[in-house]
């Protein structure tokens, strides 16, 4: 008679009790997995918005540019950097940018603007810039024209086919000035971007600022954020000064703090949930041990070593946890997968807020494996913690009082 069989049968002496206890674990795990999947999904969505909208997963620039973002601290994209990027297997794409500030004018209207020189084809592959073109056409590599953000265009009172003057300071203090036709109007979800962004082909931008072949940054893309740590660490080991590489997390510390804060809130909720589960299992185990005191005494009396008895009690506790956790995880996989494929649409103020932030008004779900196996580990740890009680009881049970009970 294997002790595992005895433990399993003991579990079903009072089937309803086992079902109710495992049921509480089931719902706890299901709820916790659902919450975590929703949390991770929303983080992934936020990260995607930031990363795929502008910053990329990583950027390469010079150390000087990192400290002082002037055009004098830009760099020439040389073969050694190109080789490092192209040899990194996790990178899916990259694009070059030259970014600086100038005044944009039309007739007697002038406004400070961010000028971004881009490789139109690569930029579109990395950030999908083309989809924000509201009027007119997207840029091509040899254009000597600009895309202007909608609110800036309205301020300057220009439309497609009109011209604007860009006027500022170029590389090493050279005067930067040029007249450019407006090829398209961009409408971003973010009001901040709509007020100040002007895109132009990289060559035109380099000519404008008298900075031939110079770039302010290289924007690197990965398949997803889970590949970032290894790719970043690998690239950091290869990229030497004066260059440096930074992840989106380092470039967007505000977003990281927001995610961390939200994670802490979620952890608090889940801790309460698991605390309730812990007391549920503990109650059952206390009752199971208490009502079987005499039987446990008999088992020791007739020759069962206490360590074997404690093993039976441990396995019983473990089985209760396992049943609930396995059922909870099994049920949560199809549920979260459904919402992963069909994100939950948001309505009302919540939807409006998200649209204003430039985020699609959907509640996204994640199906990362750790969402599921972490629950199993948590339940296992809870079970281990609770199982200490019956194990201690098996070792300290007084035979005479157990047999009298």
């Amino acid at each position, binding site marked *: *008679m294997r002790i595992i069989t*005895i433990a399993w*049968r*003991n579990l079903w*002496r009072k089937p309803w009790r086992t079902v109710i206890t495992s049921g509480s674990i089931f719902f706890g795990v299901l709820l916790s997995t659902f919450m975590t999947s929703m949390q991770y999904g929303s983080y992934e969505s936020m990260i995607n918005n930031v990363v795929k909208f502008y910053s990329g997963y990583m950027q390469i620039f010079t150390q000087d540019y990192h400290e002082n973002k002037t055009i004098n601290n830009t760099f020439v994209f040389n073969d050694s950097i190109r080789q490092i990027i192209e040899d990194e297997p996790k990178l899916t794409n990259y694009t070059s940018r030259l970014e600086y500030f100038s005044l944009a004018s039309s007739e007697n209207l002038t406004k400070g603007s961010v000028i971004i020189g881009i490789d139109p084809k690569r930029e579109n592959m990395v950030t999908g810039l083309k989809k924000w073109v509201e009027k007119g056409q997207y840029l091509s590599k040899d254009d000597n024209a600009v895309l202007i953000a909608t609110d800036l265009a309205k301020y300057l009172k220009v439309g497609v086919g009109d011209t604007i003057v860009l006027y500022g300071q170029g590389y090493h203090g050279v005067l930067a000035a040029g007249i450019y036709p407006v090829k398209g109007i961009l409408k971003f979800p973010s009001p901040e971007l709509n007020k100040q962004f002007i895109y132009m082909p990289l060559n035109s931008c380099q000519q404008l600022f008298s900075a031939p072949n110079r770039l302010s940054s290289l924007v690197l893309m990965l398949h997803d954020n889970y590949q970032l740590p290894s790719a970043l660490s690998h690239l950091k080991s290869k990229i030497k000064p004066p260059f440096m590489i930074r992840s989106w997390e380092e470039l967007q510390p505000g977003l990281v703090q927001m995610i961390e804060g939200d994670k802490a809130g979620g952890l608090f909720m889940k801790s309460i949930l698991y605390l309730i589960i812990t007391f549920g299992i503990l109650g059952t185990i206390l009752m199971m041990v208490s009502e079987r005191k*005499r*039987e446990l005494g*008999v*088992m*020791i*009396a*007739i*020759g*069962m*070593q*206490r360590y*074997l008895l404690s093993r039976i009690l441990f396995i019983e506790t473990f089985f209760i946890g396992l049943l609930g956790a396995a059922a909870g995880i099994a049920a949560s996989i199809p549920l979260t997968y459904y919402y992963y494929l069909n994100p939950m649409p948001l309505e009302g103020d919540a939807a409006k807020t998200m649209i204003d932030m430039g985020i699609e008004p959907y509640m996204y779900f994640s199906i990362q494996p750790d969402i599921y196996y972490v629950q199993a580990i948590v339940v296992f740890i809870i079970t281990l913690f609770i199982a200490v009680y019956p194990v201690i009881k098996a070792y300290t049970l007084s*035979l*005479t009082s157990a*047999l009298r009970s």
Partner: protein
Amino acid sequence: MNVIEIKGLTKIYKTSEVIVKAVNGIDINFEEGEFTAIVGPSGSGKTTFLNMLGGLDKPTSGKVIISGIDVWKLSSRQLIDFRMNNIGFVFQSYNLIPVLTAGENVEFIMHLQGKPKKEREKRTKDLLEAVGIGNRINARPSKLSGGQQQRVAVARALASKPEFILADEPTANLDSKATNSLLELMSQMNKKYNTTFIFATHDQRVMDKAHRIVTIEDGKILSDEYFERD
């Protein structure tokens, strides 16, 4: 030949208010094949005596020597193994393991002893047939009557081939028919296997079957008588 030698066995319970001498310096020997009843009024100390004899309750002083081994000098683990291999227990409330069938209850102790599966199965079958419930081998205790459960308990006690069997009020929860039948069975086992039986009891029917009656009162032996029985 003495199977059990008891010397100066004493058990003192101390509470904050009183000191109770439950067993007060008992000296007694038991020989192989005896069928002995320990009798006495409630609170006389017979169960405490039996528990100390069976290695379940540690004496305050004195010795219990079984087959030359001073059992209370064994470590906790050694004592459990010693009980498993040398002592069979039959309790008042049968105390079978409820999740095991009758057969598994009997086999369980042999499993703990590490006996091979074939030997366990054969002995289980033989013992359950010997106690008259071979046809209930696959029944759980809850499906057996009190008498049948106590028969399984006797079979379980015999399964490990112990030196002796301790039975604490084994007939207390049984009706007359079941009691007579159980006593007859134990008597047969005593004759067939020459197993030593020691009962703690108030039951006159048990006393009528016993070859030796030891009367205990206030933790001391009041009388120790031998009888010729059929």
